């Protein structure tokens, strides 16, 4: 077995705690978060381990992990944590750091969806599923006949609107994006 010698470094811990506002240092590894996580099978590190890795400053491994992109922000973990740690915002901070630092993410599909989502909101001020999904599929060049058939079905049944509805205050949404530097 290869032993990774790591230096502990609490700069990541301090930064994440500051940005997410979550007391990540309090995690004492009871693993209740991981026990209830619906996405755990898709994670390479369970949520409790993500907390531990932040505490120990294992930044590179974390930013390149699948876990941070597979979290669906259902917030089950945060609702149950005995130390009151909301893990979803912590995951958001880690994703942001991943993108800012240009780290190649472990799961590009998830990142693609994530980007398509925010780009869409940026344009319309709110989400328009039809264009978002179209652009997401086209970007990955994975669009299939089934996808098109499903899309048509959803449109015909009125499940997703054909035309986008813009936010009443698009300007404000764009300012938010601007403020966050994106």
């Amino acid at each position: 077995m290869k032993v990774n010698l790591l230096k502990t470094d609490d700069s990541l811990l301090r930064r994440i705690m500051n940005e997410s506002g979550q007391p990540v240092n309090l995690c004492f590894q009871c693993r209740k978060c991981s026990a209830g996580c619906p996405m755990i099978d898709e994670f390479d590190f369970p949520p409790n381990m993500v907390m531990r890795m932040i505490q120990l400053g294992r930044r590179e491994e974390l930013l390149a992990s699948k876990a941070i992109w597979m979290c669906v922000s259902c917030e089950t973990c945060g609702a149950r944590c005995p130390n009151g740690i909301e893990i979803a915002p912590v995951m958001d901070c880690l994703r942001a750091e991943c993108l800012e630092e240009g780290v190649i993410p472990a799961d590009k599909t998830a990142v693609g969806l994530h980007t398509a989502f925010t780009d869409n909101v940026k344009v319309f001020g709110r989400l328009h599923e039809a264009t978002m999904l179209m652009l997401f599929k086209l970007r990955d060049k994975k669009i299939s006949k089934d996808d098109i058939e499903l899309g048509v079905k959803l449109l015909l049944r009125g499940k997703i609107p054909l035309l986008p509805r813009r936010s009443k205050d698009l300007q404000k949404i764009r300012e938010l994006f601007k403020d966050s530097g994106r």
Partner: protein
Amino acid sequence: MKKIGVFVCWCGSNIAGSVDVDQAVAGALKLDGVTHAEHYVYMCSDPGQQKIKDAIAEKKLDGVVVACCSPRMHENTFRKAAGSVGLNPYLLEIANIREQCSWVHPDNKPAATAKAISIIEGTLDKVSQNLPLETITINLTKRVCVVGGGIAGIMAALDLADAGYDVIIIEREPAIGGHTAQISTTFPYFQEISELLDKKRAQVHEHPHITVYLSSEVEALEGYVGNFKVTIRTQPRFVDHANCTNCGKCLDVCPVLVPDEFNRGLTRRGAVFRLNRDDERQLPVIGRRDCLHFNEGTKDGCGLCADVCPEAAIDLGAISSTQEESVGAVVMATGYDLYSPANLPEYGGGKIPDVVDAMAFERMLDPKGPTGGKILRPSDGEVPKSVVFIQCAGSRDPERHKAYCSRACCMYTAKQARLYRQQVEDGTAYISYMDIRSDSRDFEEFVQKGMEEEHLLYIRGRVAKVFEEGDLLKVLTADTLSGHALEIEADLVVLALAMEPASGIHDLVKKMNVTVDGDGFLTEAHIKLYPVESSTKGVFLAGCAQSPKDITDTVSQALATAGKIQTMFANETLIADPLIAEVQTDICSGCGICIETCPYGARVMNEYTGISVVNQAVCQGCGACVAACPNKACELINSTTKQLFRVIDDFARRA
């Protein structure tokens, strides 16, 4: 011919379910000497006891057999009942037909009934040869000797003295306070120890009922419960404290420099020193071991301190003295020592200057201590920015060190790490731990608060080694929660060393005739029901001498001990059970085997007659001497060999 009554108890269906009580009574009535027999549903109930009392009175019984449950349950009950109507209680015996008969033979009523009758017959034979006995009364000296003047000894002594009993405290150091005096603050409320201890120490010294023997040890303990004689040897201080003005001139002039034990080697002291050099209320003493005057081959004849003393208070010719004190009870409050860091070479213990033990860290935290309360690296006096605390240093390692948990370390480490972070705001505190044992009021919250407010980083796993690499001090460990090895750069490493019994405990326990466990901790008579009594009657336990404890638990135990002794002293005399061993003087050859065998120290040789004697106050009637005596000169009263063989004969004949 004796007139003996047999009373068979049904114990509801416990006995009556598998023993035919009618037949048992009929069987008993056929036995020699039985003049009365009856059965009842619950003999131990008030009407049941009344039946026994009535029969004794009406039939003028001179012996009773109660066939019922184990004598451990109700022997006392029935003996009291018999005694109340004038029958000597020791002429009543229990025939155990429940645990030893009905419960083990639930499916064979005829056989169980026959066996019950056998048991009754055997007991009948025994009781017909029993002697009427009187309880033994023992003189009681209502004075207490407390060995050890730490927080346990102080608290026990104050409680007893406040109750009006004379107490002597024997302390081998030149001042009382013990290890507690070295500690800076308590957990979980960060209270300064000096606030607590100074007050208690003053109370001890001012108390009219307390005498303190400093620089003293127990030389011998003779006697038994209620009647101990303690011989105390006091080592000379070589400084006459009656004349000493505490001017400190001798301290300045002494040419010797040795590590100061009180400050755990953080400072050095002369051969003439104050136990706590920063406590100017303490008067200087001279340590013979370090003083050049007493060590030939160096500067023999050094007497600089005596020359400089303006009061001529230094007497290098002083000799040790002994005193005798009579006491009725002894409290063993001998405390603990820390496991030597030299036993942990992989952590650089005793070698790397920036690896210190937790007590040295306490000295640094003491605002009146050698660093004025500042945490500084011993090597260069810098403020450490990264401190690694290593818990279980020597504890929980059955293979190489101590198997037990030292119990206080989790909490004092959390306290020390929190105080460090409060002092050094940009510092990082790592705590290496196996489990966090924070099992008392506000303890868990205290640890959690350390993580929350002081950002203590707990790393689960044992440190593999601490080593120097160039100028750096490195700690190699693993985080078993994430399964990774870690290397931490540390400025200071603090070892939470295991607690072990105070040095010299093995010699002392031989003198006190108390037992210790494999680690040298004093053992209590019963872990649940007699937690502060030792194996020797009249010798009690308090504090870390029994097992590692924090101050809270130590004080609780010390006060429990004081309470136990007050209960004993509430009587004018002591009463002992007469069911003990006796020596048949015409058979005893004086070989002395019983003296070695007796676990209670109840046997001594009479120097004039050459015959072994039983100390009635100490003997517990265990029978070890009976088994050991090669001449069969020892007998247990009312359980003689003759009696027991007859019981066996009865069984054998019917079987």
